[in-house]
C-alpha cells in the first residue's frame, strides 16, 4: 500500500498543473501522480495549435466568454465560462515564467494567432507544438519539488469510496503486474478523453476513457457525453491532426473543383468558423460528391501552398514534418488530403465549476471532466488552457478539502475483491477483445459520426449491447503478469463499451441538433426542451438519464451564424 495525501490520476496537462499548485502552496503535502504512461508520453503532447487567453487591449474577457458561449451553442454554463476566461491569462504567464518557449512578436512579447470561432487573435502558441511544450514545461517544473512522486505506468482499476467519501484507489503497476492500493485523502482524476471509442481519430492509442468509465461505475454521473467533437482536418488515412492553426495562419479548404466551399456555409468566418460548422460543411461536400476520391476514400484539400515556405517553417513546422514523413507530401508544394476526424470529448465526469464531483474528496479536471465550459462544441485552443485553469482549481480544492480530513479508514475487503475481479473473473472466455474494439470503432464511426439519425443510433445501441455480451467472454491470452498488455487492452475495451453505451443512448434521447450533435431527423436546436445538460448514472441495466438546466448569466441563446 502506498500512502499519500493527494493522489492525482493522469499526468497530462491538467494532472500536472494540479500537482504544481499543490507543491507551490504546501511542501508538506505528499502528492502521488499515477499515470498509465510516463508523463511526457501523455496525449496532451499532441495538442498543436495553441491556448486562448486575453492578453492585449483589443480583446476583453466578455468577448472571450461570448465567443466561447456562442461556440458552445449555448450549452456551456456561463458562470463557469466567465470564471474560466479571467483565469486564462495568468496561466499563460505562469508557463512563460517556468520556461515555456512561447512564440514571440519581434518586440519580445508573447505572440497570438487567429483560431476558429474567436473574434480576435487570441491564441498563444509555441510553433505548432503547443501541447508538447506545455507538458514538458510542467513536467520539468515538477522535478523541482520534493513532495511530488511519479508513479508512471500504473493503470487505474478502481476508486475506493466509502459513505460517499474517497479513500484511495487501486492501480496495476505494469512493470510487475501487481495490484497496488493508494490510500489518499483526496483524489483528482485527470485521465483525459475517450477518443479511442472511434476508429478515425486524432487521439493517442492510450486514450480509452478509463477514468471516466471508472468514475461512472462508482456512481459519479457523466455529463453531456453525446457531444463529440470532429476536427475538420485529420490527415487521410492516419487521422493525424493537422492543426486548426493551418487555417488560422491563412490556409484554405478546397473541394475537387478548387472551390473554397466554406463560402457557402459560413461566408463571414469562412475556414475559421467553429469546428462543428466546418466539419459539417466538409461532410456535406463529401456526401454530395464534391470531394476528391483517393485510394482511402473521399477527401478534401487543405491548401497551404500560398503561405510560403518561410511562414510554414516558422509557424507550422511539425505539420510539414508529419506530412512529409507520413505521406511524402510537402505542404509547401502541394495541398494536404484531409477529412473530419474525431478529436475531442466535450462531455465527461460531472463537476461543478470548482472541479468537485458528487463524491466528497473526488475532483476531476481537464478533458475527463465536464464543467461545462465547452457545451455542445468546444472552440479550438480552449482545451489546453482549460486543463491549466481547472487543473489549478482542482489542486487548490483538494488542498482545502484535506485540511479537514484526519485520516481515511480503509475497507480491507476492497483490494481483495479488486484482485479477484481482475485476475480471476475477467478474460476467461475466447473472444478476442481487439475484435470487439474494432467492431465498436466501426459502429461509432458509422452511427455516432457528424450526421446522426434515430435509426442509426438504435442500431448502434443494439450493436453495443451485443458487444457487451461478447465482452463477458473476452480472453486474456497471456499468463505472465509483467507488462501484460493483453490484460490492459481487455480492461480498456470494457471501459469503452460502458462509455459508448452512454454516448449512443444520450444521442438517441437528445431529439434536437446542437453544436457537434447533429440529428438529420431533428435538424433544429430546441431550446424549449433541450437547453439542459444530460446526466447519465450507472445502473446494472444500463445508464439512467437525468437532465440539469444550463446556467445562463449574460447571454440569452440566439441564432448561431458565422
Amino acid at each position, binding site marked *: 500500500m502506498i500512502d499519500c495525501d493527494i493522489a492525482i490520476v493522469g499526468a497530462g496537462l491538467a494532472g500536472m498543473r494540479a500537482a504544481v499548485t499543490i507543491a507551490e502552496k504546501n511542501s508538506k503535502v505528499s502528492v502521488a501522480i499515477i499515470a498509465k504512461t510516463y508523463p511526457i508520453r501523455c496525449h496532451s503532447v499532441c495538442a498543436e495549435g495553441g491556448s486562448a487567453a486575453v492578453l492585449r487591449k483589443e480583446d476583453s474577457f466578455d468577448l472571450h466568454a461570448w465567443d466561447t458561449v456562442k461556440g458552445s451553442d449555448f450549452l456551456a454554463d456561463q458562470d463557469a465560462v466567465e470564471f474560466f476566461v479571467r483565469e486564462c491569462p495568468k496561466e499563460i504567464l505562469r508557463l512563460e515564467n517556468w*520556461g515555456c518557449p512561447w512564440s514571440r512578436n*519581434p518586440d519580445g512579447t508573447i505572440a497570438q494567432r487567429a483560431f476558429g470561432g474567436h473574434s480576435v487573435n487570441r491564441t498563444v502558441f509555441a510553433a505548432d507544438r503547443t501541447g508538447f511544450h506545455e507538458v514538458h514545461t510542467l513536467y520539468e517544473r515538477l522535478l523541482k519539488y520534493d513532495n511530488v512522486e511519479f508513479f508512471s505506468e500504473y493503470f487505474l482499476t478502481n476508486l475506493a469510496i466509502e459513505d460517499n467519501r474517497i479513500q484511495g484507489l487501486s492501480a496495476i503497476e505494469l512493470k510487475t503486474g501487481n495490484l497496488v492500493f493508494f490510500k489518499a485523502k483526496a483524489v483528482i482524476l485527470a485521465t483525459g478523453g475517450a477518443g479511442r471509442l472511434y476508429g478515425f481519430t486524432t487521439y493517442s492509442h492510450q486514450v480509452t476513457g478509463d477514468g471516466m468509465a471508472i468514475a461512472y461505475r462508482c456512481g459519479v454521473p457523466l455529463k453531456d457525453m453525446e457531444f463529440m467533437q470532429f476536427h475538420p482536418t485529420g490527415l487521410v488515412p492516419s487521422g493525424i491532426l493537422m492543426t486548426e492553426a493551418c487555417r488560422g495562419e491563412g490556409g484554405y479548404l478546397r473541394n475537387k473543383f478548387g472551390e473554397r466551399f466554406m463560402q457557402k456555409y459560413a461566408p463571414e468566418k469562412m475556414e475559421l468558423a467553429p469546428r462543428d460548422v466546418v466539419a459539417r460543411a466538409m461532410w456535406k461536400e463529401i456526401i454530395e460528391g464534391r470531394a476528391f476520391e483517393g485510394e482511402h476514400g473521399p477527401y478534401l484539400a487543405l491548401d497551404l501552398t500560398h503561405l510560403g515556405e518561410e511562414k510554414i517553417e516558422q509557424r507550422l513546422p511539425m505539420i510539414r514534418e508529419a506530412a512529409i514523413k507520413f505521406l511524402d507530401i510537402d505542404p509547401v508544394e502541394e495541398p494536404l488530403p484531409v477529412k473530419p476526424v474525431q478529436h475531442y470529448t466535450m462531455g465527461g465526469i460531472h463537476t461543478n465549476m470548482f472541479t468537485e464531483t458528487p463524491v466528497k474528496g473526488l475532483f476531476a479536471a481537464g478533458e475527463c471532466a465536464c464543467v461545462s465550459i465547452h457545451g455542445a462544441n468546444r472552440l479550438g485552443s480552449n482545451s489546453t488552457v482549460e486543463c491549466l485553469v481547472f487543473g489549478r482549481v482542482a489542486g487548490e480544492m483538494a488542498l482545502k478539502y484535506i485540511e479537514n480530513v484526519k485520516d481515511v479508514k480503509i475497507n480491507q475487503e476492497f483490494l481483495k475483491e479488486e484482485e479477484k475481479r481482475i485476475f480471476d473473473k475477467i478474460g476467461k472466455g475466447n473472444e478476442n477483445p481487439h475484435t470487439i474494439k474494432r467492431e465498436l470503432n466501426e459502429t461509432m464511426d458509422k452511427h455516432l459520426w457528424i450526421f446522426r439519425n434515430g435509426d442509426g443510433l438504435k442500431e448502434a445501441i443494439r450493436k453495443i449491447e451485443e458487444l457487451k455480451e461478447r465482452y463477458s467472454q473476452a480472453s486474456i491470452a497471456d499468463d505472465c503478469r509483467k507488462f501484460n498488455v493483453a490484460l490492459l487492452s481487455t480492461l480498456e475495451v470494457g471501459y469503452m463499451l460502458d462509455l459508448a453505451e452512454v454516448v449512443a443512448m444520450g444521442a438517441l434521447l437528445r431529439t434536437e441538433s446542437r453544436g457537434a450533435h447533429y440529428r438529420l431527423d431533428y435538424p433544429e436546436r430546441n431550446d424549449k426542451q433541450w437547453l439542459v445538460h444530460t446526466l447519465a448514472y450507472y445502473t446494472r441495466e444500463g445508464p439512467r438519464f437525468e437532465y440539469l438546466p444550463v446556467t445562463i448569466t449574460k447571454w440569452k441563446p440566439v441564432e448561431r451564424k458565422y
Partner: protein
Amino acid sequence: MKFVIRRFKDDKSFWQSFEVPVKKGMTLLDGLFYIRENIDPSLAFRASCRMGICGSCAVKVNGRPRLACETQLSKFKKEIKIEPLDNFRVIRDLVTEFEGFFAKHKKVKPYLIANTDYENPIEQLQTPEELKKYYIFTLCIKCGSCLSVCPSSATLESSLGPAALVSAYRFNADSRDRGKEERLKIVSESFGVWRCHSAMECSEVCPKQIEPAKAIQLLRRETLR
C-alpha cells in the same frame, strides 16, 4: 513482410517471426499492432501518439534505433528485425526500463531557474532571436535513441548521456534563465560533458535532428569559460 522480433519473457530471451501483411503507407508501429491484435496479444511494446511527438516507441530496427511510428515499412525489403533499445534493461519484449533515463534528465536541473512570483506572474520579454538560440534543443522527446547508441553511456552507467546534456544546454541558453552556474557545475563532473567520446552517434540517430553532440560541444565551451 516477415517481422523478426527479439522477445523477452520470464528472464528468457528468444527470436520469433511473424508474417505481417503490408499495405501502402503502413508503419512499423501499425505492423506491431497487427501482430498484437491478430496473432499474439501478449507482444509488449510501448506506443502512444503515433505521430512522433510522445517518444514512446523507439526500438532497434535492423540494428538502428528508430521511432516505430515514423518508420515506413515500404523502406524495407522482405524482412525486418526488431529489438529493444540497447543500454536499457529489458522489462519485457520491446519494453525497457526508463526510470534511470529520466533520473539522468532530472539531475541537470532541467527547469528555468529564475526569480518569479507564482501568485503574480508577469510577462518576460524574449525576442525571436533569443528564442532561436535554444529552441531546437527544446524539441527532445526523450525517446532514448541517443542513449542507446552512446558508447560512453554503455561503459559507465552514471554517465549523463546525450539527452540530459541537451536539456542542460537548452536551459543554459535561455535568456530568462539564471541557473547556468549550477548546471555547469553538474555537467563538468566526471559523468558529464567530458565523459563524451565524441562518437557523434547520437546526432546520427536523433529522430528530431536535434544534434545532441552539438549541444555537448557548446556546453564544453561554456565550462571552459
